[in-house]
């Protein structure tokens, strides 16, 4: 068993780093500080290297560490813990796109962080800016009972091919790839390029490939992706990717910052036209570059042997069962489980990172972790017999909250905790909702299990609110001369093969959001048919297929109207301050950097 952690003795499969980049960053920063490099050029450079701006200040950065395919080694987690202690706020943030972020970092420390990350094979290169962002892969890829084959090697090979590739150094806008394990667990349709692994079995042969979806994505205006063709064989994966990137690079809107994601191009050209362009471009790529370009697929999986432990564990069995039910998934491999570690809105302390690294190295047969799609971390390949002791270890570091795979683990973007564009503290709201729902044991309710709550602090969709069963995005409301934080709520969104953007419902003052969620649950409980879950009930309503007395979103709206009322400041001044603050609420934003 290799549960020893030693940063000097590292065997990692993929080294994403390039040490020279730290030095280069340091030189460019100096030029910028000496006014020899203009702020715009420096910003573009900084974003290309994964250093994002911070709310209301030029002195701090957010460093986004890419975790390609979400695959992270214990030693890498320990390094991130060290860096968080030295250069950040003693916590790290797990994002919804398999990045790990260090916030409130002094800009001058970024090169040092890059250098230290390089020692464990990690990079921040192309984590922000108009590049191909982190290549995601389903956290259950390789272990999912529904999947046809493991897409991880393809996600990693694509990441390797595209990282630092001249193809993607100056795209019209950011560009995202998501590989999934299966249609059910996917995020394949709400991204520029979504890939679901499928096997095509005909009489002659068995062919591996993907269903590829193009032109989806969330933002100020969101779209669901279109399927390119019935089946794309793996031999065509690279050429299809190159073709799509080239078409976007050539035709994407470089003038209008608000309309420059690929989904707008698809919308403007029309799907058929766009599809034909891609297919033509792919033919060219195939003919001209097949001999020179290929993906390096590494199908080897290193599984370690884990020593059996028969250690007796004393624990609260009720709590353990609750956790077991909501935080673990049975793998396709007999007797093995994947364990989802719930965080609060993705935040984890440096100490917890260290402990988690140790737990993974001790109990996971693959000795790596994945970060999930919901600001969480997944430890896979845990033997049935080790679940109890693993739970007790998680409990001892405060990482055993139940509800990971239920409504009770809301996603919240960073909001006003660090983002320049944010209007509300969506981050804290997600934590408040989670605490409330867990205290009410909502995670134990099977009818609510398959629903999600996601919150963004502004109309942009970093919190992915549009694909949530119950989604919120923040804004400012006004009552006379006073302002209060408010959320626009949408219902019935989903991100699987039936991907659908939520339907806008109503604006709710921030301080009534929790009550609104509880009210929706109670409306559902009264109205439902026996087999309905909250998700399926809302599905019927938003698709005009309701078979109960609540017929439409409007009906729900009427029932929620009392919760939209904002008391006067004298009656209840609490409505006029946001979560995490006692001050009077006012909207303040700086310049966004996504589009830089």
């Amino acid at each position: 068993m290799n549960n020893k952690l030693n940063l000097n003795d590292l065997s990692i499969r993929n080294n994403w780093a390039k040490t020279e980049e730290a030095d280069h960053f340091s030189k460019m920063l100096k030029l910028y500080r000496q006014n020899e490099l203009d702020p715009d050029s420096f910003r573009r450079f900084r974003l290309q290297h994964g250093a994002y701006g911070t709310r209301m200040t030029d002195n701090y950065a957010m460093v986004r560490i890419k975790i390609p395919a979400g695959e992270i080694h214990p030693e890498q987690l320990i390094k991130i813990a060290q860096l968080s202690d030295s250069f950040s706020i003693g916590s790290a943030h797990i994002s919804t796109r398999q990045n790990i972020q260090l916030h409130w970092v002094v800009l001058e420390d970024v090169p040092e962080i890059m250098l230290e990350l390089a020692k464990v094979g990690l990079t921040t290169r192309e984590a922000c800016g108009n590049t191909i962002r982190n290549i995601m892969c389903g956290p259950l890829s390789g272990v999912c009972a529904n999947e046809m084959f493991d897409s991880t090697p393809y996600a990693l090979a694509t990441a390797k091919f595209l990282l630092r590739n001249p193809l993607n150094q100056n795209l019209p806008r950011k560009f995202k790839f998501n590989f999934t394990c299966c249609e059910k667990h996917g995020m394949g349709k709400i991204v520029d390029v979504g890939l679901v692994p499928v096997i095509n079995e005909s009489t002659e042969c068995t062919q591996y490939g993907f269903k590829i979806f193009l032109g989806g994505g969330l933002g100020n205006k969101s779209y669901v992706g279109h399927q390119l063709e019935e089946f794309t064989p793996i031999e065509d994966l690279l050429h299809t990717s190159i073709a799509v990137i080239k078409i976007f690079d050539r035709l994407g809107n470089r003038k209008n910052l608000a309309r420059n994601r690929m989904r707008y191009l698809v919308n403007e050209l029309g799907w058929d036209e766009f599809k034909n362009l891609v297919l033509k471009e792919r033919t060219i790529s195939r003919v001209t570059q097949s001999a020179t370009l290929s993906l390096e697929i590494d199908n080897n999986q290193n599984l370690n042997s884990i020593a059996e432990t028969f250690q007796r564990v004393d624990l609260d069995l009720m709590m353990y069962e609750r956790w077991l039910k909501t935080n673990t998934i049975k793998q396709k491999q007999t007797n093995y489980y994947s364990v989802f570690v719930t965080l609060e809105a993705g935040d984890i302390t440096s100490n917890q990172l260290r402990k988690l690294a140790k737990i993974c190295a001790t109990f996971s047969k693959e000795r790596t972790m994945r970060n999930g799609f919901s600001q969480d971390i997944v430890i896979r390949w845990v033997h049935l017999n080790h679940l109890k002791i693993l739970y007790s270890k998680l409990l001892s570091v405060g990482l055993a909250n139940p509800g990971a795979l239920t409504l009770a683990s809301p996603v919240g973007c960073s909001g006003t905790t660090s983002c320049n564009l944010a209007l509300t503290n969506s981050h804290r709201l997600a934590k408040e909702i989670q605490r409330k729902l867990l205290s009410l044991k909502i995670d134990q309710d099977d009818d609510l299990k398959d629903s999600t709550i996601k919150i963004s602090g502004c109309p942009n969709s970093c919190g992915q609110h549009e694909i949530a069963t119950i989604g919120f995005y923040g804004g400012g409301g006004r009552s006379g001369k006073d302002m209060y934080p408010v959320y626009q709520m949408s219902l019935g969104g989903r991100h699987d093969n039936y991907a659908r953007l939520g339907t806008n419902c109503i604006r709710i003052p921030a301080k009534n959001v929790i009550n609104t969620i509880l009210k929706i649950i109670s409306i559902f409980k009264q109205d439902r048919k026996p087999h309905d879950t909250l998700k399926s009930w809302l599905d019927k309503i938003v698709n005009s297929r309701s078979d109960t007395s609540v017929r439409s979103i409007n009906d729900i709206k009427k029932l929620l109207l009392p919760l939209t009322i904002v008391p006067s400041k004298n009656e209840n001044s609490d409505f006029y301050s946001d979560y995490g603050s006692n001050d009077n609420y006012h909207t303040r934003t700086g310049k966004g950097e996504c589009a830089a």
Partner: protein
Amino acid sequence: MCSLKENISHVTLNADTLISKINDRDIRIIDVRSRKDYSQHHIHNSVNLPLLELLSNDSPGHLIKLIQSMGISDDTHVVVYDNTFGALASRLVWNLLYVGHNNVSLLDITYDNWKLLGYDIDSKNVNFGTKIHTLNINNNILSTAEYLEKKINDDNTVIIDNRERLNFLEQHIPGAINIPYKIFASPNKILKPTNELEKIFESRYVDHDAEIITYCGSSGTLSGLAYNALKSIGFENVKLYTHSFKEWKQLQKTIAKQDDANYWDLSAE
């Protein structure tokens, strides 16, 4: 006076070197941990001077009396250690320098590490008799609130806050820069190698000619570590604001903060 070079090499003492001198009568090892921890076990031949007790009465005269009773004279080489990443030991080192005892070093590792390496420990109390020590206050290394206040807008003075980042964002002395104390340690030693320490200050444009004032939360321990880190790479004009931010607030001096962001909500509990 020692030459500059000797001074630099003096700030920390390598554990191996201490081993070789551990029975030397001219060397005095001081353990600043609590009496309870010390009585269980400690580095062989060390004496106990709990820092928390000292801080409750850190008048120069009191400290001189204490070190005299430990058999420390002006020439004795004092080596200080703790088990709190060097911060408590650093504060005593500063106090000794302040009362005029210049022949003092930090042990370069913590007590836990010392034990881990299998070096000599025991639980014996040792007595080195009483010696005479002169009192020669060095005001050049002390900053009071009044002094610091005058230096806030001085271009040649760098004020360094060594608390954690969130505390700094929330409130700090105007004009201060933040270097959290955890930056200074390397995985095995209380201070990084000198070239790495140099880089930390260089990247923040802190010049060797500048006057530096370090402070932290309340008692000058975290900033004491920073004080020693700076001395170890040859910064000459460094002062410790011993009463630090706690006193600054009590005196209702001006405070700066990072506005319009809920950064605390980003930290996990």
